[in-house]
C-alpha cells in the first residue's frame, strides 16, 4: 500500500519504535521471534538511504536485505531453514568484512 513517504527522521523514529516494541515483545514471545525481529530491523535499516538524504545505498546491504526478505518467514514453518539462512547471512557479512577491511592495500 502506498503512504506518504516519511522523512529520514521519521523513518529513523519508526525503526526506534519497532526496536522498542520488539524488545518488549521478546520478553514473552517465542524465543525465535527475537532473531526474526532483528532480521526485520536489519531489512528496515537497509532502506534508510531511501529516506535520509546524504546516505548512500550500500549494494552489499541491499543484497542482504533481499535475502532477509526472502527468507525471514522461514521462521514460521522451517526452523532449520531459518537457522541456515541466518548462518548464510552472517557468513556473507564475514566475507564482506574481510574484503572491506583486510584486503591488501
Amino acid at each position: 500500500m502506498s503512504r506518504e513517504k516519511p522523512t529520514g527522521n521519521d523513518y529513523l523514529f519508526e525503526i526506534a519504535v519497532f526496536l522498542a516494541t520488539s524488545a518488549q515483545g521478546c520478553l514473552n514471545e517465542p524465543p525465535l521471534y527475537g532473531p526474526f525481529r532483528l532480521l526485520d530491523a536489519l531489512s528496515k535499516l537497509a532502506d534508510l538511504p531511501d529516506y535520509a538524504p546524504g546516505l548512500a545505498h550500500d549494494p552489499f546491504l541491499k543484497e542482504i536485505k533481499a535475502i532477509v526478505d526472502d527468507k525471514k518467514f522461514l521462521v514460521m514453518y522451517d526452523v532449520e531453514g531459518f537457522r541456515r539462512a541466518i548462518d548464510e547471512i552472517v557468513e556473507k557479512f564475514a566475507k564482506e568484512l574481510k574484503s572491506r577491511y583486510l584486503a591488501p592495500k
Partner: protein
Amino acid sequence: MDIFQAVKGRRSIRRYKSDVVPKELIEKILDAGRWAPSGGNIQPWKFIVISDRNLLELIRKVSPGYLGETPLAILVCSDKEKAYKVGGALGRDYLSVSDCSMAVENMLLVAYALGLGTCVVKSFARVAVKEMLEIPEDIEPELLVIVGYPAYEPKPPVRIPLREIAYLNKYGQNFPTNLEE
C-alpha cells in the same frame, strides 16, 4: 464456499493490495465473530474496527508482528469485568481468551470466503495500542486481525500428520487413519 475448502485454503497473508474493504464485508466478518461459541454464553468480545489510515499506521508502528500494510484491522478485545461477573476467575482468565480466539477463527474463515486475506497478530505493544485506541481498563486487547486483499498466494504450510496427534480412546493409542499430509 464449502466450509472445508475455507478451513484448508485460508492462509496468513503478509502482503496486501491497497484496495479498500467495503463496509458490507466488514459487517459480515464482525457478524461471524459474534456467532462464535462462548463459554457460559459470556460473549466477552468487543471488536474495534480500525480503518483510519493514520491511526492504522500508528498501530502498525507499535506492532512488530504487523507485517505488510493493510487498509483495515480489527482488534478483538475481551471484556474482563463482564467475563468475571458471569464466569468467575475461569471466565476472566481462560474463557474470555478462548472465546475471542474462536470469534477470530470465524472471522478469518468468513473473510477468506469473501476473497479477503487476513493475518492474526499477537505481537503488538499492548500498552501503546490501549493508549491509541482509548481502550478502558477492564477491556483487554487479545488479537489484532489485519485484513485486506491478498497480493499473493502463499504456499500451504507443513502440518503435522494426523497419525502423530490423534489418539483413539486413550492418550498414545493410535487413531487409525489413511489421511496423509
